[in-house]
């Protein structure tokens, strides 16, 4: 028998992990920095969320109630290597299936989060893109849920790193409960608007911070965030990611308004389907990033009046199901009450349609109707802030 050499230079020195702890990209043995995201690979990923400091400028009565123990999970969680998604085979140490050679998605290419049984999201690279520039960040605290989705702009550098950083930064600002203002609706609306503006600013700063010094295409991304709190959905948007409210019965609603050429065309009278199919449809008119002209999000809120699902998603999903009814149909087709299964179905649906873009679907159960500890809400309850009087709905505060 031949005695094999004791050490191969191809084996990774112990100091370097096989993949980047920040973005999941594979690393060259001995690397000190990740080639994909540029960060030092021996550092621990930052976990400390920024704390909200100027939260209650508008509403000095409310105390800051950031809860460090709030539920939430990280994209780069350490799980045992999953079987190959293509054939179920064993994924090798080299990151490819030992049977069919399919590249196993990195933690950045595909991740799922489920901070509570009634809240979950799936973020996926899709089929056509070589990396996942979508990002999401979710949090649940008791009956309060926060969904954040950012979609990195694909022709800019580091957008995958930027979008994830933005989503996390936005989530950190939105973790504490919304301020109540001075007790009158206008004051509360202004206070919530201020929080979303701060959140967008924090997201913007996170994106700017990921820009390589010498970049000519600074990273940028979209932002949508939805906060379910006390039976009301507060939301904000910037770019063309979306928030939908999809009741189990009855008509669904697209809550956000895109900042896109398609939206400008719709505003100018072009039918939605035609506008969204146009060549320029996906050119966004607002984004987060160094070269952004305007980072004030549109904000709004809506009362939950019936059980259903709150959905935050990127255009990788709604490209294939823009109308609320089409999304409701897919939610029903999932045949599950588990938001993770529904999100997985939505992603699979988009990939089945071609997966032209990265796909993110984040869901929270609203209005009860599930035995999962979700907020029960009060279907059909009357409220002074009904959908019609929806304060600030779709109103641009820019």
């Amino acid at each position, binding site marked *: 028998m031949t005695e094999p050499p004791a050490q191969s230079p191809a084996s990774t020195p112990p100091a370097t992990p096989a993949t980047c702890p920040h973005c999941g990209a594979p690393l060259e043995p001995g690397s000190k920095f990740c080639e994909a995201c540029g960060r030092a690979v021996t550092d621990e990923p930052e976990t400390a969320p920024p704390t909200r400091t100027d939260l209650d400028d508008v509403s000095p009565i409310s105390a800051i109630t950031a809860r460090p123990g709030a539920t939430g999970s990280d994209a780069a969680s350490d799980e045992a290597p999953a079987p190959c998604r293509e054939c179920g085979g064993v994924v090798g140490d*080299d990151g490819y299936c030992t049977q069919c050679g399919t590249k196993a998605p990195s933690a950045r290419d595909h991740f799922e989060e489920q901070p509570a049984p009634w809240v979950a999201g799936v973020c996926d690279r899709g089929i056509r893109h070589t990396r996942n520039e979508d990002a999401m960040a979710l949090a649940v605290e008791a009956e309060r849920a926060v969904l954040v989705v950012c979609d990195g702009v694909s022709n800019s550098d580091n957008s995958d790193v930027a979008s994830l950083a933005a989503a996390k930064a936005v989530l950190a600002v939105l973790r504490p409960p919304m301020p109540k203002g001075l007790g009158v609706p206008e004051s509360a609306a202004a206070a919530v608007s201020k929080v979303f503006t701060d959140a967008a600013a924090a997201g913007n700063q996170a994106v700017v911070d990921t820009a390589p010094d010498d970049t000519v295409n600074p990273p940028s991304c979209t932002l949508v965030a939805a906060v379910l709190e006390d039976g009301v959905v507060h939301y904000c948007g910037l770019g063309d990611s979306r928030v939908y409210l999809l009741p189990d019965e009855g008509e669904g609603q697209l809550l956000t308004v895109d900042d896109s050429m398609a939206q400008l065309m719709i505003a100018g009278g072009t039918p939605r389907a035609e506008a969204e199919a146009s060549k320029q449809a996906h050119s966004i008119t607002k984004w987060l990033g160094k070269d952004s002209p305007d980072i004030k999000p549109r904000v709004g809120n809506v009362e939950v009046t019936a059980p259903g699902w709150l959905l935050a998603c990127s255009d990788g999903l709604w490209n294939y199901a823009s109308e609320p009814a089409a999304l409701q149909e897919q939610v029903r087709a999932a045949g599950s009450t588990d938001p993770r299964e529904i999100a997985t179905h939505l992603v699979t649906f988009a990939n089945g349609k071609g997966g032209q873009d990265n796909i993110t679907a984040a869901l929270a159960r609203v209005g009860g109707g599930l035995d999962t500890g979700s907020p029960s809400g009060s279907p059909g309850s009357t409220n002074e802030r009904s959908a019609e009087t929806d304060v600030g709905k779709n109103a641009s505060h820019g």
Partner: protein
Amino acid sequence: MRAMAEFTASVYQNEFLPDGGTDVHAIVTVECTGAGTAGQTGSGAAGEIIIIDTSGSMGQSAMAGAKRAAQAAVAEIVDGTYFAVISGNGAAFLAYPLVNAGPAMVPMNDATRAEATDAISHLRSGGGTEISTWLDMAGVLFTSVPQVVQRHAVLMTDGENNEPAPVLDEAIARATGYYQCDCFGAGVDWKVEEIRRIAQALLGTVDIIPEPQQMQQRFEDVMRQSMARGVANADLRVWTLQGAQILFVRQVSPTVEDLTTRRTPVNDLTGAYATGSWADESRDYHVAVRLAAKAVGQEQLAARVQLALGDQVITQGLVKAKWSNDSEQTTRIDPQVAHYTGQTELAQAIQEGLAAKAAGNEELATTKLGRAVQLAAETGNAEATSKLRKVVDVENEETGTVRLKKAVEKVDEMALDTASTKTTRVRK
């Protein structure tokens, strides 16, 4: 002291395929460092057999040269290595050690080296050339010392084999995978094609020694190289996905050797190709795989190219496929792949050109050797260029326009033929 041999694998390829593209080409460079010395690395003993042609065609100066060469080779064999000397003509004779039973190879030391040197000096020429008997005896000698795991022979002949081709081929088949053999042809009366068959199957080299006074140096060199091969019996392994087809696996440096048909299955998806023993060196392999196209944007592992010692994979290179719409990405040919594709065609053009010339087909010979001149220039193979210029007159190197020389030294043709598989590396 156990050697700490290390292997690395580097992959050179353009992994981008156009929409619908199915064929992936890659050059995998495997480099070995810290190989140590044959038989000294704790992995088992090494054995060397020197096979000298003592047929009647070996004249006085050839015999004298061959004896000096064999003695020089003996001098290079490091102490502790098992060795033997075969004198071959119409049959094979054990020239050293002089034993009638039991192990037919002895460990090298001062005493055995002196005895072997003396035994070689008493060799006489006479009789025919039946190389199958030489190869078979070498196999028998190695079998008599089971502790020898790294088996290498050096063979020199000066004439054409006097056996039907199948007889030699069967002997080659018996030796294949059991020992390695470097081959020399002395003078110009031997058949390059015949000896190349032996060398290629037995993972060795083939070379011409035109003059007897050059024999000693060549034997010294080849034995020194063999002694530097401290890693015995490495396999190249190629994994590819289910349903994919390996178009070919070729060694392309230092010489072109098609390994495709030498595959032995390791499992359903992996095949092994014997590479013999390794010194501190690097070898390049050209691997081509055909697989089902995936959607644009998808990435697929096409092959894992591994170096294995026994059951253990020591290093691997990944050959990938990524489908893209970007023609700037997909139309670029990797310079290493392009270079070795040219070098492989060069070897083929030389061999086919010389074969056509020998068969009297001057037109085909001119075309093939012209193409060879062109390829040698394009790929920067100066050795091939200079050897080609001794066989053809070059009118235009770029277009490959040549004329066959009226009078060609046979030794130049044979030197061109034996060197045809030698490749150069990419100029960086």
